[in-house]
């Protein structure tokens, strides 16, 4: 795999940064090199956050921000109202494919999170579900992802998050324009 650049769009509190981190570990588990980059700046709960993920077969040298991601993951449909999403492939937390002019993968991560009671301060925590969907799209094995999640969470929380990821890994659907 040559260098692949991914952008995650999420609201503060949704766990976009953690998702990038989990996927980087997943990539490492798959024998790849990876970078997870949080939004550089002062986040406030609720505001739009951009995080990045780079994956490659070779060590990744660049440290600048990702400008033209090949894949964009969108953690909430609402984000489409405030941010322009331009990429070949979009992975979105949604019941329907709500985009055009690109390859779209969609999964109802919010429902998965709510059903598993992954909620904080009123928000469904969709990051592991979205990680599941993204891992699938990126072609990673579920085992690698599971391990990454277990490195990130512990105890019961790990279980729940693995479940969420598993469901999304399986439920994510592709829709092409």
């Amino acid at each position, binding site marked *: 795999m040559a260098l692949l650049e991914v952008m995650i769009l999420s609201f503060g509190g949704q766990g976009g940064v953690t998702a990038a981190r989990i996927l980087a570990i997943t990539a490492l588990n798959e024998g790849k090199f990876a970078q997870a980059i949080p939004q550089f700046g002062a986040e406030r709960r*609720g505001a739009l956050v951009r995080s990045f993920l780079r994956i490659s077969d070779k060590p990744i040298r660049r440290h600048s921000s990702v400008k033209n991601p090949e894949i964009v993951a969108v953690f909430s449909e609402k984000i489409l109202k405030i941010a322009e999403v331009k990429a070949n492939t979009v992975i979105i937390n949604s019941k329907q494919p709500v985009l055009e002019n690109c390859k779209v993968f969609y999964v109802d991560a919010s429902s998965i999170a709510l059903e598993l009671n992954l909620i904080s301060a009123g928000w469904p925590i969709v990051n592991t579900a979205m990680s599941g969907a993204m891992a699938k799209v990126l072609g990673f094995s579920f085992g690698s992802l599971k391990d990454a999640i277990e490195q990130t969470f512990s105890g019961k929380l790990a279980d729940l998050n693995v479940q969420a990821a598993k469901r999304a890994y399986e439920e994510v659907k592709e829709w092409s324009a």
Partner: protein
Amino acid sequence: MECMIAKPSKGSAGKTGLWRTFKPIYDESKCNNCLLCWLYCPENAIDVLNGKISIDYDYCKGCGICAKICAKKAIEMVREEEV
């Protein structure tokens, strides 16, 4: 130098109404006009017009303080449709 100077602007963080998960809904009929919600809204997103309050949804972040402080339960927090 000018770029080090900022001027008063509503929405310095953009439309912060987008941050909401829950939305305060005001029921005028229950309101006794105590204005506690106005006093305690940290966002300063509540206005008082002719003794009645009105919530600026462009900026209200949905913290829920107004609903909680209201003795008359004239404000209720309702989940935003989509998250």
